[in-house]
């Protein structure tokens, strides 16, 4: 970052001479320090998981949910500045609502991702605002099946089969690549998601964390986005920790 201190990073809507927007890059830095979030697109649905960093021992376990619902069929997990994420989700809900009131059907995911991408991009254009400090992974099921998108602070959005963001994204991405995402069932994806979050936590070992997993699936949740049951979560955690131990044994 040789250009830092030249003044080109002081405002949005200003390019540096080599064509960069520093405010957006700083926003991405904020994302990179956040807890890991991942999304897996499976055969008939989507699984979202976050590594929720525990900032205080006094925080009530199992409360303070990090994964949110935009519409009945759409969930979102994000890394970065949490209040920015909540504002982002509110906008998503407004968009889903306005679509439903006009067309009397649920918003298709590509349409929602496009609207949200446009919204986020707008925050990179004016010097009175700052970009969103989050990368959001939105997943859901519509008429055309499951979809998974990730929207970045620049407003860029891509469709994924497996997406990861936050501190442990590199580890998570290499783990995701090992999966057979074309054929994995939602139930298996939940377990793999747990395992990936545990693996990614190795990058953030000094802090405690809580695992949060949600899913949208045609067969498992009738197309609705919801948190996985406690029982399934425990199974997934057990799978994740056992796998981690056996991996260690193999290393020995």
């Amino acid at each position, binding site marked *: 970052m040789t250009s830092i201190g030249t003044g080109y990073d002081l405002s949005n809507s200003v390019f540096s001479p080599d064509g960069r927007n520093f405010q957006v890059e700083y926003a991405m830095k904020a994302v990179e320090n956040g807890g890991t979030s991942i999304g897996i697109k499976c055969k008939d649905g989507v699984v979202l998981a976050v590594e929720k960093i525990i900032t205080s021992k006094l925080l009530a376990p199992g409360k303070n949910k990090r994964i949110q619902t935009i519409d009945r069929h759409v969930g979102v997990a994000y890394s970065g500045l949490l209040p920015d994420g909540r504002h982002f989700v509110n906008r998503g809900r407004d968009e889903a609502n306005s679509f439903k*009131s*006009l*067309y*009397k*059907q649920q918003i*298709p995911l*590509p*349409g929602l991702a*496009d609207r949200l991408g446009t919204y986020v991009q707008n925050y990179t254009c004016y010097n009175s605002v700052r970009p969103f400090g989050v990368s959001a992974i939105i997943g859901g099921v519509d008429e055309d099946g499951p979809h998974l998108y990730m929207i970045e602070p620049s407003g860029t959005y891509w469709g994924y089969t497996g997406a990861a963001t936050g501190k442990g994204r590199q580890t998570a991405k290499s783990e995701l690549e090992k999966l057979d995402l074309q054929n994995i069932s939602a139930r298996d994806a939940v377990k793999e998601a747990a395992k990936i979050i545990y693996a990614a936590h190795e990058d953030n070992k000094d802090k405690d964390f809580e695992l949060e997993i949600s899913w949208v699936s045609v067969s498992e949740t009738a197309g609705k986005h919801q948190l996985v049951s406690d029982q399934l979560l425990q199974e997934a955690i057990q799978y994740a920790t056992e796998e981690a131990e056996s991996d260690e044994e193999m290393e020995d």
Partner: protein
Amino acid sequence: MNNISVDINHLKKGEVNLGTSIMAVTFKDGVILGADSRTTTGSYIANRVTDKLTQIHDTIWCCRSGSAADTQAVADMVKHYLELYEAQHQQPPSTHTAASVFQEICYTNKDNLTAGIIVAGYDKKTGKGEVISVPLGGSMHKQEYAIAGSGSTFIYGYCDENYKKDMTQEETIQFMRYSLGQAIKWDGSSGGVIRMAVLTARGVERLIFYPEDYQKQ
């Protein structure tokens, strides 16, 4: 307003009306829309060869009844909305989507509109025809077939008795031609020719039947 309350909700003076007989019927291969061709201003026939079947999208059409100005304006608006929809979503809108937009406009402006519309379309995905009627108050009803307009009152019984599921195209045309023929016969505000639009996988086919064609049989 100065304690003077005046009812302004009467029919606008000199407005062009589509005293009408319209219908849309689903059949084996898709859906067919049909209408008479009479437009009136009071007792004068302003147009005897009107086309009350309006294209809203590639394979979504509608039958218009009520005020000509209102239904044309609403149809133009929906046409515009669906053009935007396809550009934004990279896929054609469904018949249900089209009907929803009609419903939204007709309901929110119900105090200022006289529009009874039947939306009908062929869906490539399902290979089926769909009929949704949006009557005066701005409600929305999915039906196997729908009839509307002043002439429709005379053919409720006939249509109820003779409509069959999954008819062939020829049977459906026959059924509609006779139904609309009767509606025209008994309704003074309906008349002229019978126009049809056949929506199937093959696209759109327009038909016209002259009085001598539909009066006998």
